């Protein structure tokens, strides 16, 4: 009898420099350290039954990463969370542990907070609004089979902007599913090339995941 545990975790601070591949290895080791009765696959080279949803770009922070593990024994959700949090490295924290409601494939969108450092966020915001008021924002996107042109305007749902003393904060919702996936850095880099106003090194934080029906992903 295997039980599935889905965990939502944050990845902030120094931990944002852990690549996706390194993060998988880190979790495998942390599961061993937490001495959770993890289930293994059958076959000649058994591996831990762990699934990650939607890889996060290197350098992005997140408050909504998803990992799913299968255990050989039933353990209370809170105990799994606490045992993991006791040994996880700085910057990675399990926020919730629960039984999955959506299938992994039902994930459709992600909401991002993007901070563009600037002394004049009002001007920058003007420039941003101008940029977003274009009818189309066409860019070349690299795919497995070469380049494909996509319209970022059509893909981006611009939620709001906050003009702060040290920069402009944007809230965006973008496709993050298995078929369509748009990285916010693509949009911001395109903006940077088009904007007359320059800004500092952008900071990204993934804040919420949504299903393809745009309900919160659980």
């Amino acid at each position: 009898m295997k039980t599935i545990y889905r965990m939502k975790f944050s990845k902030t601070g120094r931990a944002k420099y852990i690549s996706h591949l390194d993060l998988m290895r880190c979790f495998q080791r942390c599961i061993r350290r937490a001495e959770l009765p993890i289930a293994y696959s059958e076959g000649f080279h058994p591996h831990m039954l762990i699934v990650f949803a939607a890889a996060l770009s290197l350098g992005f922070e997140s408050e909504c990463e998803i990992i799913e593990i299968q255990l050989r024994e039933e353990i209370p959700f809170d105990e799994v969370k606490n045992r993991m949090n006791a040994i996880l490295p700085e910057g990675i924290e399990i926020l919730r542990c629960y039984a999955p409601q959506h299938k992994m494939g039902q994930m459709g969108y992600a909401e991002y907070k993007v901070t563009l450092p600037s002394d004049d966020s009002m001007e920058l915001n003007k420039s941003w609004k101008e940029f977003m008021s274009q009818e189309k924002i066409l860019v070349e996107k690299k795919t497995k089979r070469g380049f494909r042109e996509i319209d970022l305007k059509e893909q981006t749902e611009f939620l709001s902007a906050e003009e702060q003393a040290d920069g402009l904060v944007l809230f965006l919702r973008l496709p993050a599913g298995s078929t369509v996936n748009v990285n916010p850095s693509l949009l911001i880099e395109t903006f940077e090339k088009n904007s007359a106003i320059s800004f500092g090194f952008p900071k990204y934080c993934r804040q919420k995941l949504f299903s393809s029906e745009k309900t919160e992903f659980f």
Partner: protein
Amino acid sequence: MSAISILSKIEPLLLSVQKPSQYIGGEVGSIVKDKENIDVRFAFCFPDTYEIGMSHLGMKILYGLINQRENFWCERVFAPDMDFEQLMRENDIPLYALESLEPVRDFDMIGFTLQYELSYTNILNMLDLAGIPVYARDRGTSMVQMVCAGGPCVCNPEPVADFFDFFILGEGEEVNLEVMDLYADMKKKGCTRQEFLREAAKIEGIYVPSLYDISYKEDGTIEKISPKENAPAVITKRIIKDFDKVYYPESFVVPFTEVVHDRSVVEVLRGCIRGCRFCQAGFIYRPFREKQPDTICKQAQNLCKNTGYEELSLSSLSTSDHSGIDEMLTKLLDFTEEKRIGMSLPSLRVDNFSDALMEKIKRVRKTGLTFAPEAGTQRLRDVINKNVSDEEIMNAAEIAFSGGYFNVKLYFMMGLPTETDEDIAGIAEIADRIVDMFFQNPDRPRGKMVQVSVSVATFVPKPFTPFEFEPQATEEEVHHKQEHLVNSINPRNAKRVKVSWHEFRISQMEGVLARGDRRLCDVIYAAWKNGSRFDSWSDRFNWNCWEKAFAQCGVSPEFYASRRREYDEIMPWDHLNYMVDKSFLVREHKKAMNAETTPHCRANCSGCGVNREVGRACF
């Protein structure tokens, strides 16, 4: 510069360098303390990149040891790779430590480990990046930035003597804490740097190079090594008497990014009983001491539990020489199988490579096997005292093939003392015979092609070995030998035998630095100024930087590399006592010239002198 300002400076840069997680710290097992409660901050510097330094066991041991003490804080520092170094210099980011992200220049002690000679230019580069004066004489009179070093190359630290305040000879588990206690005490009293160094020199195993004057004869050899200010005439290395009880870390720092050796490691024994005459480790780590199988097993379990590593390896110079190897492996395999931990066993000798041992390894996994016959003929193996016969090599390969292996890696050296073309041809002969044997073996793995990789290193004579008197082979000699080896391999096996070797200039530089004296300090400095970095990496080594440096300093590399030393010559390291008598090295050298072997220490004590120093028989 504070941690926050370093962090804000490196953040915009990290995404444009390779493997950024190596520059940010925060790994599982890393130790962060409140600096307000700390008496001595120690920066443990590994003069190579993170992925190499994080594989080094000595650092893990000393990191844990120092951090056990509440009033000490040991942090890790590695050489930034070239891409990040450039960005650090462009953006005025000083070398910082990974735990606090604070500049190394603010530390009390800056300790380097000297693992290989070709890392020396990286040390200078790291000091410079830290903003610390490269030459020790320029560091003023206050008790800050005390730059020290330990590790195997400290057995002849003279080529880097001008860059260090002091050296730590031998094993560090006791003496490191002693010298840090002294530092804490004298710093509180407001002593000067020079007062501290004079006191430190009284601790056994501490060598303060500025307290010794070296004079030279007209022929360039050393005339006299003169201690000053009551410094001891001879400095003796430190050893741990009870190796079974010595501190061993219960956890390691577990890197995020992949490093060369990324696993739990238990050190099972120290020293080596074999006495191979080319091998420096076999002499400088004496005496031979083992941990009890139960201790090893307990330490392995602790480490695997606390790190979460899925792989365990045993570390030593020759693991199969452990007197309790069977008990140890049985116990370890029971626990590793239950916990799904893979086990790897390096350093096995061909002469006791048995079916039973093979079975134990096979329970783990099936990859390649590596043997080190070191020389191509029995005569030359007798000269170097590698007591392995042709039959034992063949026997080991036979067992390996029957066990399903089809990749065999063979390590040899060329340029050994007394070596002839016949000895070189012998290397090819062994490889050819192994290929033939594969096809004659009825139990060989089917559908697989045998692959014999022959890796040939250029022999580098090292201090504290019987070959310390020997000249290193010259470029012409080495090129001739390489050609002769390739021509000696049966053309029929051309595809099955793969030969590789090291670049000559790299081995020559290693040879120069290994047996060099203080006149090389300026050469190393000049080579670093000329752009030398990461000299041990064949793709980064640049002979031009060194060639120019020798010319600038008027020093000849051949004087150090290719000159025969007389038995009575004063060696640059003669004031350092590694517990092995020079008269023993001379005896062994004479035996080598007659191709006479010396039995291993367990079979018969050959009187190297270490038991007199330790005050007991080794066995």
